């Protein structure tokens, strides 16, 4: 199904903070307008209390909830739900455009593992992407947790999973000139923090991966290990530093970049679904 590319494009090129969300109780897709109203009232109340306020700004905050049907993997997946907080400064004219303050997106791409045995009253949307000020995330998160009896937790990405992402994305074909593949490592136990950035020409990285991957479309743990070991030994040959003793904290490819604190940026619309599928899997394993 081809959805409106403009709508999913709003997921691209933004830094999203990842959360895992336990299933929502009695969440009804038909009541989005009601929810938007309730959330709006909740935000106003919190701001009266002095929370979620940006200093010195007088804003009317509008809440909009919508469905993104394009972000779905299998038939069983719930379509994604987008939450947007926008503002119109009281000072500006009526015709000026709303500014989007904060966006959040619940989604589930091939989350069959979780939704399979779920009782009817529960909606499975295990992955949550947040973009914007933390104070808004806090308020919106609290409302959802109270209203639907769910729990939000930050989703971190281990170096192990980051190396899987590198292997999965380095082989993806991109039409225009791709940016360099970059790996950032943090060296532990030093008095001063030290980060090592290892940039590789995307064609070289792809060529290396092509010699390692045996079955197109399939990746094994062994192949990922060999790929990373090749990169590490190449680095060691030149700099005498063992990257395998450091912590891989961030990866960047033409498809997407990911940081171990659970922050991702998706760069290519064609592979958006694939990235979300991987992140959904990580979210589900954090929940279970």
């Amino acid at each position, binding site marked *: 199904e081809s959805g409106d590319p403009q709508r999913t494009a709003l997921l691209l090129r933004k830094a999203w903070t990842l959360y895992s969300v336990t299933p929502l109780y009695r969440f009804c897709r038909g009541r989005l307008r009601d929810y938007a109203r309730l959330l709006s009232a909740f935000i106003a109340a919190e701001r009266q209390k002095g929370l979620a306020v940006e200093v010195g700004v007088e804003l009317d905050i509008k809440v909009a909830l919508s469905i993104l049907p394009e972000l779905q993997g299998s038939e069983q997946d719930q379509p994604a739900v987008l939450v947007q907080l926008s503002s119109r400064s009281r000072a500006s004219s009526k015709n000026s455009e709303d500014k989007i303050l904060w966006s959040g997106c619940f989604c589930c791409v091939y989350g069959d593992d979780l939704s399979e045995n779920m009782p009817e009253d529960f909606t499975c949307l295990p992955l949550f992407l947040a973009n914007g000020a933390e104070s808004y995330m806090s308020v919106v998160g609290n409302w959802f947790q109270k209203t639907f009896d769910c729990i939000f937790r930050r989703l*971190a990405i281990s*170096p*192990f999973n980051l190396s899987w992402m590198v292997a999965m994305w380095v082989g993806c074909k991109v039409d225009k000139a791709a940016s360099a593949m970059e790996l950032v490592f943090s060296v532990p136990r030093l008095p001063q923090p030290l980060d090592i950035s290892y940039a590789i020409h995307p064609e070289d990285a792809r060529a290396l991966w092509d010699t390692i991957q045996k079955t197109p479309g399939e990746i094994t743990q062994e192949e990922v290990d060999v790929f990373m070991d090749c990169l590490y030994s190449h680095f060691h040959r030149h700099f005498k530093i*063992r990257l395998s*003793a450091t912590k891989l904290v961030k990866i960047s490819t033409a498809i997407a970049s990911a940081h171990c604190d659970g922050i991702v940026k998706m760069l290519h619309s064609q592979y958006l679904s694939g990235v979300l599928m991987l992140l959904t899997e990580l979210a589900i394993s954090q929940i279970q």
Partner: protein
Amino acid sequence: HIATSLPLPSERDHLRPRIDLIVFVIDIKSKCSLKNVEDSLAYVDANFFLGKVYFLVTGVGRVNCCSIEINAISKLRETYCSPVLFCELELEGVRVATAQRLLRILQICAGLVPGFSALSFSLLMRNSADD
């Protein structure tokens, strides 16, 4: 005695006491430590694997920092028929408890606990881990 890798330097062979237990420490945050252990295992005499070799995996408190896959650890346990202990050495309480465990295991491996041999004890450890 602590060594960063095997084989031990041969100059001190004649001064070294009998070795009753070898504990290989793997930091789950460092792939390098796993590789180091795998390389060092080649230098261990086969007799040690009858209950005198243990793997100690540390760093398990930080699931989000792991660079090694659990299957790799399981494979080590299977291949070398030796028990794996999990701990978090960065926490003092766990460090002390782990040290006490290892001392007890050492006592058994040195034959100081009547009724338990190194081999019988390691079989006990492995069977309970598999349940």
